[in-house]
C-alpha cells in the first residue's frame, strides 16, 4: 500500500468558477453581495425594501435562488430592475456555476451592484463561494438568539448580520443583545444592523451600509479601464 499526498480544495471546481466571477466583478466595478439566512428570515423582503429605495443613477440587479417557483422574482421585478430567478430543482444552495450561467446574457459593465439571494438554508450555502465581495446573513427575531452558535459557519463567514423583524420584539421572547453577543462569540468583527422591513426602521442605515460597502469595494479593486471585451 502506498500513500500519496493530495492537494487542493474538495470544491475546487466551484472555487475556480467563483474566482473567475470575482475577477469579472473587480474588473467591472460591480459589488456582489450574497444574502443568506434560514427560510423566512426576510431576505426577499429586505431586497424589496432595498429596490424601493434604490438611488437613481446607480444600477442594481438581483439573482434570486429557490428550490422551486418564480415567486420571489415576480415580487422583485415590479421595481423595474433586472431580476432573474434561479430554480435549483432540489439543490439546497446556489453554486458558482449557477451564477455564471445566469449572468451569461447580462452585461456586467452596466451594473454597480449585484445582489444574490441564496436558497434559505443556514448550512450548505456557507460552503459555496459565489465570487461575492461579502456574505450578508439575515437573522429574524422570531428565530432563537442562539442561532449563531448553532450554525457558526454561516455567521463566521458573513461580514454583516442584519437582524430583521425588530417590530416584533415586544411580542417575542428574543433577547437582541444576547443574539449580538452570540454572533460576536462566533465572529468578533461581525458588523450588525437592526431593522424592520415592515416599518422601515433601520433601513436608512442599511442603504448607507450598501453605499459605503460599494465605496470600500471600489477602493480595494483596481478601477477598470473601460473594456468592451468582458462578458
Amino acid at each position, binding site marked *: 500500500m502506498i500513500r*500519496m499526498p*493530495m492537494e487542493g480544495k*474538495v470544491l475546487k471546481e466551484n472555487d475556480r468558477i467563483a474566482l473567475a466571477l470575482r475577477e469579472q466583478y473587480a474588473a467591472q466595478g460591480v459589488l456582489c453581495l450574497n444574502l443568506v439566512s434560514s427560510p423566512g428570515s426576510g431576505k426577499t423582503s429586505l431586497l424589496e425594501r432595498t429596490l424601493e429605495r434604490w438611488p437613481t443613477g446607480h444600477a442594481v440587479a438581483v439573482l434570486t435562488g429557490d428550490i422551486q417557483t418564480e415567486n420571489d422574482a415576480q415580487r422583485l421585478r415590479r421595481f423595474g430592475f433586472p431580476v432573474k430567478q434561479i430554480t435549483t430543482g432540489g439543490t439546497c444552495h446556489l453554486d458558482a456555476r449557477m451564477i455564471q450561467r445566469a449572468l451569461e446574457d447580462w452585461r456586467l459593465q452596466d451594473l454597480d451592484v449585484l445582489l444574490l439571494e441564496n436558497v434559505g438554508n443556514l*448550512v450548505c450555502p456557507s*460552503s459555496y463561494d459565489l465570487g461575492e465581495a461579502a456574505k450578508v446573513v439575515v437573522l429574524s427575531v422570531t428565530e432563537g438568539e442562539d442561532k449563531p452558535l448553532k450554525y*457558526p459557519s454561516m455567521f463566521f463567514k458573513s461580514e454583516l448580520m442584519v437582524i430583521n423583524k425588530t417590530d416584533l420584539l415586544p411580542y417575542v421572547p428574543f433577547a437582541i443583545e444576547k443574539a449580538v453577543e452570540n454572533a460576536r*462569540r462566533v465572529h*468578533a468583527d461581525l458588523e450588525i444592523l437592526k431593522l424592520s422591513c415592515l416599518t422601515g426602521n433601520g433601513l436608512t442605515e442599511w442603504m448607507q451600509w450598501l453605499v459605503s460597502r460599494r465605496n470600500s469595494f471600489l477602493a480595494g479593486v483596481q478601477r477598470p479601464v473601460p473594456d468592451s471585451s468582458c462578458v
Partner: protein
Amino acid sequence: MHEMGIANAILEAVVTEATRLNGQHPSRVGVRIGELAAVDPEALHFCFDALVRGTDLEPLELDIELCPRKHRCPQCDEVFPVVDYFTECPRCGGLRTEFVSGDELELAFLEVDDQ
C-alpha cells in the same frame, strides 16, 4: 444536506488521480474537514459509500480528519484550539485573537494498492 455534492467532488478528484496511476487501484482517500466547514462527517460517509457502491472504485474507503478551529494571539503568538467559542488567549488572556484555521474542506491523501 449538500454532502452528496461534496462526496461526488471527492470522487471526481480520486478518478482524476487514478487515471494517472497505471492501473493501481485506489483503496482509501483522505480529506480534512474543519469544524466551521458546515459538513457533517456521518452524512458525508453515507453519501460517499452510496456513490462508490457498485462501481469500479469499490471498496474505496473515506478517511476524514476533523480539524478544530484554531486561533493565534497577536500579543504572545500562542496558537490554540477554540473550545466552545472561547476565543480568549489561554496563555496571556488577550481578548483579540485571530482566526488561523478550522474551515478546511480539503483533499489530504490517496492510498493505492502497490500490486
